[in-house]
């Protein structure tokens, strides 16, 4: 679609239409967002054979599919964990139920949007949370489970930040993604503090590339999380304040690129 055509389409959109989900569906249609029905493994972004031509519109569906990739994984993890007798202590069960409820709502929202716009909803993979036995106790030992859970939560925050960026051109969807990113961040903080309560020296935010990660499969969630340059400005000791590298990395979560997301998620998929 030519830019001038897009502008014409934009002219015809009622701003208030954008405030509701049904309206957004129609807008996407009006912007020509029709994506070829391709079986898409999450994280994969080749929805169009001619990417360059479709770039202005297909990125919305790409972003949603990308976000769904981690939401599916989160939902599967907690569904399985809550069904595993003796894994989660009784005191912590309600928190995980709350988290699972939010994840399933994220999934339902995006599935609705994809369906409504005539896009293919990606299938839910089968997961192996031991990562082919790299984490043999992932679903039997609570500490190991929490480690995996916070890695998946922190990844969720990071992938949703990427989705926000991809959804730049659509104010409603980008706001939805931001609002889910911060919910993911709340979940991540809660899970990390549960692990702290087991005596692990960690906080609710990610410091560096996470020294408390235990094996490679989990460390991969934190690649490039140790960035200390924001808006081209170095944040360590900024303006003479005694703010450390740890504080500088903790103060921002970093978007996770598609390739890094795949590297992290792949070992957990059967």
């Amino acid at each position, binding site marked *: 679609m030519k830019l001038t055509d897009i502008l014409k389409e*934009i002219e015809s959109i009622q*701003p208030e239409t954008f405030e509701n989900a049904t309206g957004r569906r129609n807008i996407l249609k009006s912007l020509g967002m029709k994506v070829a029905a391709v079986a898409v493994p999450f994280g994969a972004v080749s929805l169009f054979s001619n990417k360059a031509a479709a770039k*202005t519109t297909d990125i919305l569906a790409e972003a949603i599919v990308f976000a769904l990739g981690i939401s599916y994984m989160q939902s599967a993890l907690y569904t399985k964990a809550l069904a595993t007798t003796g894994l989660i202590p009784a005191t912590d069960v309600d928190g995980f139920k709350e988290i699972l409820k939010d994840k399933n709502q994220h999934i339902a929202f995006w599935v609705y949007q994809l369906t409504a716009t005539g896009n293919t909803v990606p299938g839910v993979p089968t997961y192996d949370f031991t990562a082919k036995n790299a984490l043999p106790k992932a679903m039997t030992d609570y500490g190991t489970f929490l480690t995996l859970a916070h890695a998946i939560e922190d990844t969720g925050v990071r992938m949703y930040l990427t989705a926000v960026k991809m959804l730049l051109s659509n104010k409603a969807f980008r706001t939805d993604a931001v609002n889910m990113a911060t919910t993911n*961040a709340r979940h991540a903080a809660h899970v990390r503090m549960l692990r702290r309560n087991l005596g692990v020296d960690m906080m609710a935010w990610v410091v560096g590339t996470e020294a408390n990660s235990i094996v490679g499969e989990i460390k991969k969630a934190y690649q490039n999380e140790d960035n200390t340059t924001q808006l081209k400005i170095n944040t360590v000791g900024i303006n003479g304040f005694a*703010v450390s590298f740890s504080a500088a990395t903790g103060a921002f979560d970093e978007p996770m690129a598609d390739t890094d997301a795949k590297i992290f998620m792949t070992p957990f998929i059967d």
Partner: protein
Amino acid sequence: MKEVTTQDQTTHESASLSRRKFLNYAGVIAGAGLLIASCKKDDVQPTADDDTINLGSNDTGLLNYAYLLQQLEAAFYIQVLKTPYSGMTKTEEGIFTQIRDHEIIHRELLKNYLGTDGIPPALENDWSSIDFSLKSSVMAKAKFFEEVSVAGLNGICRLVIAEEHLVTLAKMSVVDARHSAVINDMITPGTFAEKADDNGMEVSQDPQSSIDITKKFFKKNITGIYLPKY
């Protein structure tokens, strides 16, 4: 800072609906990397006089509002640690210290980025509604400020045009959300995501109503009338 020049919507209330519609979706154009509107004469620069701080318009104004929120949070935690309530535990002190440092970094980053387009630094606060000697008062306000900041930053994310502004603010907001979750759990365990709506989403807040509830913590009046609107 990166200059984003589009007409301010507030100063053009009489503008035709079609143009307003167009501006609402100006992000499409920014996303396409094309400069389509360059109307600098319509920009409203931030101003500060003895009584009032005017945040300005466009992305600059929105970033100034983010800067104001981070000034508020940083100043609050600096005060909390300067005059700790009795019985503050080591864990609480550690959490507040790290949160404070994050907020200082957020504040200073925006200060440096905005440069001469920024509102004044270290705006004087009005803490008259807070009793820093009382844990319950401090915790309640920490909860309030973090929630206001996350909702406010997310609202700003809806309105900014430049990609780097959107991404940086979102990166900041998720960390404020981590703070908010911890504070909530410290007050009432399990309330880390109590504000999530039926879609599991944070409820973002538009700058106008967000400013209405934050400006009482500043001695000067704050106005965001030239900011882009929802």
